[in-house]
């Protein structure tokens, strides 16, 4: 059975999905790809907007430089944790 995703994992997944789509995606596509409910999606998007990780432009969600930096740091941390078996 797969483990429940952590909060940070979900944010990272969402940002990763946006980044894979050349940095922007439609909210509905993101919702399905990230496997989230509408309520969850709204909550996470609001948080990402507040933290400057993503912005909404012309009905599309775009990743910011800060968002890209976040993914990079997150992947490094995951690599670190995996190395030490944490």
């Amino acid at each position: 059975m797969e483990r429940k995703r952590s909060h940070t994992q979900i944010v990272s997944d969402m940002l990763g999905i946006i980044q894979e789509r050349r940095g922007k995606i439609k909210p509905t596509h993101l919702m399905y790809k990230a496997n989230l409910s509408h309520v969850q999606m709204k909550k996470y998007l609001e948080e990402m907007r507040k933290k400057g990780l993503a912005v909404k432009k012309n009905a599309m969600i775009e990743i910011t430089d800060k968002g890209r930096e976040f993914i990079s740091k997150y992947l490094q941390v995951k690599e670190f944790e995996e190395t030490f078996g944490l």
Partner: protein
Amino acid sequence: MKIVFTPDWFLSFDVLIEIFSFLVLIAFFMFALRSYKLNQNKKALFLGIGFFLIAFAEIFTIFTKLVLYYDTIFTKEVGQMIVTYHFVNSVDIFYYLGFFFHKLLTLSGLYLIYKIPSKKGTTGDFILAGFFIIISAIFSSSVYFVFHIIAMIILFFIVMNYVNIYKKTKFENTKTLIGAFAILLVSQIVFLFSSIKLVYAIGQILQLVSYIIMLILIYHITKHGKKKKSHADSL
């Protein structure tokens, strides 16, 4: 009584190796701290504290050795028996205090690193706890190899922990980590014979090799994050 085993030709190099070790350990501490901040991973926090304690121990050695080397030169320049004796005594106390904290922090740091992936109440815990009681009792006796024996034992358990983790995950970085800790373990065995000056230098060089491997590991971890990012960018 002998204060340091460093050969004359190795006097500055050993401090440089310790500065290098300090920087590598701090880098691991920073990664662990970032992991804790991002994921609230308490294990990462304790691992970070472990690395930080060893880094802090290195600082104690660096300053102690610098003062010791400097004072030795100074007393030679003075060239008076009474003054020289006085300085050597003050240096002795400073050295022993510095070295005491170096031992204490290094062993505590290593123990934390060992403890993190292991389960509670293992035989290893019991053996280690016993050794800690023994070391605290004989700390004052200044038997230099006691520290190396205990460090060696903890490092052995650390290596075994990561071997078990590697068996489960087959993660390449863990293999590199095992290599680094194994060389550190060998360096402790070498240090047991450090009354022979050349052997002490060999031990230090082994320690340097171990920290170089850890630096390579840091490079891999950092590169991995960037590589994944650029891969995603190209999609």
